[in-house]
């Protein structure tokens, strides 16, 4: 692998480039449709344009938490048990948390215009805040030390428990009387509440945010792969480096004296590891 390209874009590959390019194009089209082409609403005025950001963010948060639960299930299932699933679950949850924060902030701004308050303890809002809190707790649980296998099992069980909040949060507007509006698009047995360019732009927002989510997840998984490489190869290289240091500090060997080890002083140059990762760095 070329080291320079690794250093410049360590988690990039063909997939991330393609998905990233599509995401950029999609975001451009979405901005034009959302801010220029799409008409204002008769009730909400221009702020209806937030509908092209807020619901898509919330959906991607659900997708992230759903993938986290799927990865956790795959880890707990004996036939598919692998730490790769645990790492996939962790990566999905982290990207989901990013979208969940975006959902709450954009929703709060929208609520300030529509309801006159930045926040209210409405069932949907409260459950979304609870969802964010439990998945932040899940991410904190992943940072605990100890045996990786035991930790993965604990985290998988915790992720499944955390995921229980998702369907309750989604159905909150149907189960309780809430200030938050009900579903706009997916209404069982009824047509969507919006039409024309508004409907087209909103559907496009789900596709574009889906691409953005995929792009972020691919990069996040790339970071997991980097951490794996350091964990697997770093030890071997560190030992080789220490051996090389030991050879360099040893007294000069005479012509008849045996070399300290095969392939070190007399062989090709020993590999060097740049340094050990300081505690907390790279996390």
């Amino acid at each position: 692998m070329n080291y320079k390209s690794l250093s410049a874009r360590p988690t990039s590959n063909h997939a991330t480039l393609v998905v990233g390019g599509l995401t950029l194009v999609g975001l451009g089209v979405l901005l034009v449709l959302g801010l220029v082409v799409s008409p204002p609403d008769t009730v909400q005025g221009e702020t209806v344009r937030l509908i092209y950001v807020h619901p898509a963010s919330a959906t991607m948060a659900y997708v992230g938490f759903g993938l986290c639960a799927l990865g956790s299930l795959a880890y707990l299932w004996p036939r598919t048990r692998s730490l790769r699933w645990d790492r996939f679950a962790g990566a999905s949850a982290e990207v989901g948390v990013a979208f969940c924060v975006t959902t709450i902030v954009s929703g709060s701004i929208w609520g300030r215009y529509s309801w006159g308050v930045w926040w209210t303890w409405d069932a949907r809002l409260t459950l979304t805040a609870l969802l964010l809190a439990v998945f932040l707790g899940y991410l904190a649980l992943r940072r605990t030390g100890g045996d990786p296998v035991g930790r993965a099992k604990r985290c998988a069980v915790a992720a499944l428990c955390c995921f229980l909040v998702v369907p309750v949060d989604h159905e909150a507007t149907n189960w309780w009387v809430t200030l938050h509006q009900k579903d706009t698009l997916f209404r069982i047995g009824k047509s969507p509440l919006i039409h024309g360019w508004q409907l087209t732009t909103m559907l496009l927002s789900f596709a574009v945010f889906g691409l953005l989510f995929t792009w972020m997840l691919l990069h996040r998984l790339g970071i997991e792969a980097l951490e794996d490489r350091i964990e697997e190869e770093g030890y071997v290289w560190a030992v080789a480096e220490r051996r090389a240091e030991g050879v360099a500090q040893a007294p000069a060997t005479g012509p008849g004296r045996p070399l300290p080890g095969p392939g070190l002083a007399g062989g090709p140059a020993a590999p060097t590891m740049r340094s050990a990762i300081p505690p907390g760095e790279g996390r």
Partner: protein
Amino acid sequence: MSAATGGWDYVAGGYGATVALLGGYVLYLRRRARVLARYLPTPAPEEPPAPPDPPATQEPG
């Protein structure tokens, strides 16, 4: 309610916050990847080839 701007300031706030939060997360991922890549083991640079032996000279006499 922002009657003067018809809500455009809230739209700008919502879009801006979304870009800032998701963009910030992307920058965080980028920095984290770069830090990890810096600590990846890298192969040592190859040693330059040894200079060719000087031509053998015959000593006078």
